[in-house]
C-alpha cells in the first residue's frame, strides 16, 4: 500500500473441514486453523507475536483473542477481537499491518472458528427487540427485503439470483472440502422451498462448523519463508451502519466507497482484477457488490451472472471455491484463504489461469459493514 513504510504479505493459510464437526469446540476450530496456517508458512506458534480474531457468530465471548493465545500456549504482544461481523476478516488485517508498522509485532495470526451447526445457533434467528412484533427474524428475511427492492428498482429476476447460486455451486463442485458440491439447475432452484420471498432455500448460505486462519508478516520476513508471498496491495472499508430499512438507499452497500479506497491505495483499477472472492451469504449480495465496485453498471449484476461471465474461464471468475453459498457458511474468512491459494497457483482443477490480482469483498450485518482487499502475487506468473 502506497502510504506505508513497507510491504505486507499473507504467508500462510489454513482451514478445518467444513460442515458438521461434532466434538470440535469453537476454540479448537481456531487453534486447528491457526496451526494449519503456521504449518503452511513453515512457522510455529512461538513465532507469533500477535493473535487477532473475529468473534464467533453463535455466541459472543469476551477476551476471545487472549483465550485463543492461551490455547496456543503463547503470550503475544498484540491481541484484538474486532466487531465488524464479516468485514472483520479484512479489518483485522488492517489492524495487523498497523501493529507491525508501529513496531509492536512481526508475525500475526488472524483466525475465525465456530460450531453453530453442531453447537448452538439460537442467535441466528433471535427476535430484534422492539422489532420482534414485526415478524422479521433471522438474516434471510432482512436480505430478502434488500433483494425485493433491487428487483423493483432494476428488474432483477429470480432466474438471475438462481444463476448466482449455480455459478458458485459449479465452483464448489471442483472443491473436495466444500460443504455442498452437488450441481443443480435453474429448475431445481425454482422448486426449492420459499424461505422468505423473494428468497428460496438455495438463495441462502448454509449453517456450518469450521475454522480458517491466515498469517500476516512483512515482505522481508516473507522472503525467508517457503510459500510464495501474497501481497496485500490495498484495503478499504466503509460502513452503511444504519439499520437496513432506515437507510436512504436499500439496494446498495459499502462496496462503492470501500472499493474505491482499496483501488486507490493499491494503485489498481477494476480492469486489473483477475478474480473475486465475494461475501455471498445470500445471492443478492455478490450481484450488488459487482455493481458497486464498478465491474458492471448499476442494475446489471443479474445479467452478468446469467451470462455466466463469473464462471472460472469466464471474464471475471467469482467465488472460485464455492463461497458462503456452497463451500461453507462461515462468515468470510474462507474467502481470504481461497484468494491466497489462487494467487499461489494452488487452485488445482479450479485454478484461474494466470491469476495475478484478486479482490476480496467482505461485509457484515445486513450490509451494515463493508471491507475490500486487493491481493496480488506481483505478477509472478508473467
Amino acid at each position, binding site marked *: 500500500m502506497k502510504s506505508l513504510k513497507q510491504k505486507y504479505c499473507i504467508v500462510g493459510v489454513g482451514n478445518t473441514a467444513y460442515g458438521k464437526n461434532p466434538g470440535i469446540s469453537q476454540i479448537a476450530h481456531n487453534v486447528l486453523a491457526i496451526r494449519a496456517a503456521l504449518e503452511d508458512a513453515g512457522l510455529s506458534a512461538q513465532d507469533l507475536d500477535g493473535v487477532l480474531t473475529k468473534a464467533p457468530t453463535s455466541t459472543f465471548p469476551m477476551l476471545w483473542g487472549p483465550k485463543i493465545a492461551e490455547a496456543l500456549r503463547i503470550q503475544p504482544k498484540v491481541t484484538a477481537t474486532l466487531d465488524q461481523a464479516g468485514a472483520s476478516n479484512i479489518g483485522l488485517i488492517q489492524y495487523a499491518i498497523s501493529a507491525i508498522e508501529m513496531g509492536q509485532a512481526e508475525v500475526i495470526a488472524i483466525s475465525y472458528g465456530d460450531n453453530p451447526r453442531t453447537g448452538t445457533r439460537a442467535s441466528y*434467528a433471535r*427476535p430484534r*427487540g*422492539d*422489532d*420482534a*412484533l*414485526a*415478524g*422479521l*427474524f*433471522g438474516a*434471510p*428475511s432482512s436480505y*430478502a*427485503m*434488500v433483494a*425485493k*427492492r433491487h428487483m*423493483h428498482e432494476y428488474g432483477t429476476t429470480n432466474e438471475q439470483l438462481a444463476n448466482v447460486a449455480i455459478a458458485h455451486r459449479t465452483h464448489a463442485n471442483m472443491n473436495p472440502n466444500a460443504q455442498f458440491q452437488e450441481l443443480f439447475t435453474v429448475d431445481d432452484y425454482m422448486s426449492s*422451498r*420459499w*424461505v*422468505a*420471498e*423473494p*428468497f428460496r432455500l438455495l438463495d441462502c448460505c448454509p449453517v456450518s462448523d469450521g475454522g480458517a486462519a491466515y498469517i500476516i508478516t512483512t515482505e522481508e520476513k516473507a522472503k525467508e519463508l517457503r510459500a510464495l508471498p501474497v501481497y496485500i496491495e490495498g484495503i478499504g472499508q466503509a460502513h452503511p451502519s444504519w439499520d437496513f*430499512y*432506515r437507510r436512504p438507499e*436499500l439496494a446498495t452497500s459499502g462496496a462503492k466507497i470501500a472499493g474505491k479506497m482499496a483501488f486507490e491505495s493499491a494503485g489498481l483499477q477494476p480492469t486489473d482484477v483477475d478474480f473475486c472472492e465475494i461475501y455471498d451469504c445470500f445471492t443478492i449480495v455478490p450481484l450488488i457488490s459487482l455493481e458497486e465496485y464498478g465491474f458492471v453498471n448499476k442494475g446489471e449484476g443479474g445479467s452478468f451472472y446469467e451470462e455466466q461471465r463469473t464462471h472460472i474461464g469466464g471474464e471475471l471468475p467469482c467465488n472460485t471455491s464455492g463461497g458462503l453459498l456452497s463451500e461453507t457458511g462461515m462468515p468470510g474468512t474462507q474467502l481470504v484463504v481461497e484468494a491466497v491459494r489462487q494467487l499461489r497457483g494452488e487452485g488445482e482443477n479450479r485454478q484461474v489461469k494466470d491469476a495475478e490480482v484478486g479482490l476480496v469483498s467482505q461485509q457484515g450485518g445486513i450490509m451494515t459493514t463493508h471491507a475490500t482487499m486487493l491481493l496480488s502475487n506481483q505478477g509472478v506468473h508473467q
Partner: protein
Amino acid sequence: MNEPAIADKFAAFEELIPPLTDLNAPYREALSRGELILQRCKSCSSYQYPFESFCYECGSTELEHKISLGQGSIYSFVKVHQPYHSAFKPFIPYTVATIQLDEGPRLLCAMLELTTEVEIGDRVTPRIERITASESMLTYELEGS
C-alpha cells in the same frame, strides 16, 4: 368495564413483547388506546421512531409526542414462509413490510391476513391488534381494505 376481546390467533405474541421501558411506555400506552404516536423534535421538527431521549437528526433532547395517522407506502417487503416463531405460525405466509411513513420515518411492520398481493409503492394504513389485556401491536393493511 369490558375487557377488549383478544383473538386466540394472537395467543403466542405475548413473549415477543419487549420489556417495558421509560422510553417505550408512552408509545405502548397510546397503541393500547388505539393510537399511534411518534416523537417529534422541537428543534428540527423531524419525526422519529423508535423513541430515544435525543433526536437522531440534530441531537436535541427536546422531543414531544405527536399522534400519527400512520399512513404511508410500502418501500419494500418480504413474504415469510419459514416458521421462525410460533406466534406467527397461524399467519404463514405473512408479509413484513418496510413502511415509508408520510411523516418521514420508516418502520418495519407485519401485514397479516392479506387477501390480495401487495406491491412496492402501495398505500397502507395501520391496523392495531389487541394481543394481551394491556398490550396492542401495530400491523398494517392496504389502504381501503
